[in-house]
């Protein structure tokens, strides 16, 4: 039964992922539609970051926010994303000591 549930999860995850592969070239791309589709990554990133970042340490939302600010500060210096990731981990580690 567990494997069956896992297969069910796989199917309902796969279908929404692949349907756009079949339909997107049939939609005549009006300029406004293109603008919308091109902006989706940035809206998605915003929604993925907040308020989720406050739940990194359940008991103290500020630790996640400070970790996120450290990542943003490092990214502003034009360093690779890896340094944002490492910097934020170190910041959260120090704050939870």
């Amino acid at each position, binding site marked *: *039964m*567990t*494997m069956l*549930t*896992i*297969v*069910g*999860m*796989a199917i*309902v*995850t*796969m279908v*929404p992922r*692949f*349907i*756009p*592969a*079949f339909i*997107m*070239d049939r939609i005549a791309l009006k*300029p*406004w539609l*293109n*603008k*919308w*589709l*091109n*902006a*989706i*990554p*940035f*809206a*998605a*990133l*915003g*929604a*993925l*970051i*907040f*308020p989720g970042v406050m739940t*990194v340490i359940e008991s103290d939302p500020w630790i*996640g926010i400070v*970790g*996120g600010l450290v*990542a*943003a500060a*490092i*990214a*502003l210096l034009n360093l*690779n994303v*890896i340094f*944002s*990731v490492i910097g*934020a*981990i*170190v*910041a*959260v*580690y120090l704050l*939870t000591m």
Partner: protein
Amino acid sequence: MNEEALPEEQSIGAAFKQGTIAGVPICLGYMPIAIAYGVLASQSGLTIFETTMMSVLVFAGAAQFMAANMFAQGALFLQIVVATFVLNFRHFIMSMSLMNQFKHYSLPWKFGLSLGLTDETFAVSALHKKQAKKENSMFFYLALILIAYLSWVFGSLAGALLGEVVPSQLSDSMGIALYAMFIGLLVPSVKKEWRLGLIAILAMILNYFFSRKVGLDTGWAIVLATIFGSLAAIPLMKEEAIE
């Protein structure tokens, strides 16, 4: 879009190598989370095989954590499958955007690459948009997805095998990794075009409102915040300003 221009030359090997490099931050972000998932899933009563197969077949972090919790609480087949659908439906919106970027690829390539779409592979792929205009660029995206997928699967297996050996303070700190990656990806684009920052902040406020004030499921809240946040681009952005 400049259809008549010849694509920039790029060998398959070079595309694959560049894609692997672009995937390293995802790998780094996935590892600790995959291990944490493996530990949690095996504590929830899943076998090592089941824990790993869920990563092989589903490849969606948040849904797998949720499912492991639901298995532990004795949830039924339909509850877990429906909850997974709700949580992962955001990938439909992301895939629409990514398949627009890949519209010149053949259907088998589009289909194959779409199956590897996660929040993280989508974000990195979408922010390497110029790559899609180069020759053999599908191998760039394939490599990026493969390295992310392998780190997810082997991380889960490692977590299931190791059990509770990672000190909790370290694994808690690692929870920031994917958020830091999203922030690290967003900031350079906002530096170039402030309107993109406005769109991201609008989506943040909307997601906060839908999830914390309206009380929607995380999945629907992210879907709605992404749709409405990005709609702001229609009046806000100039044509082709987003590159």
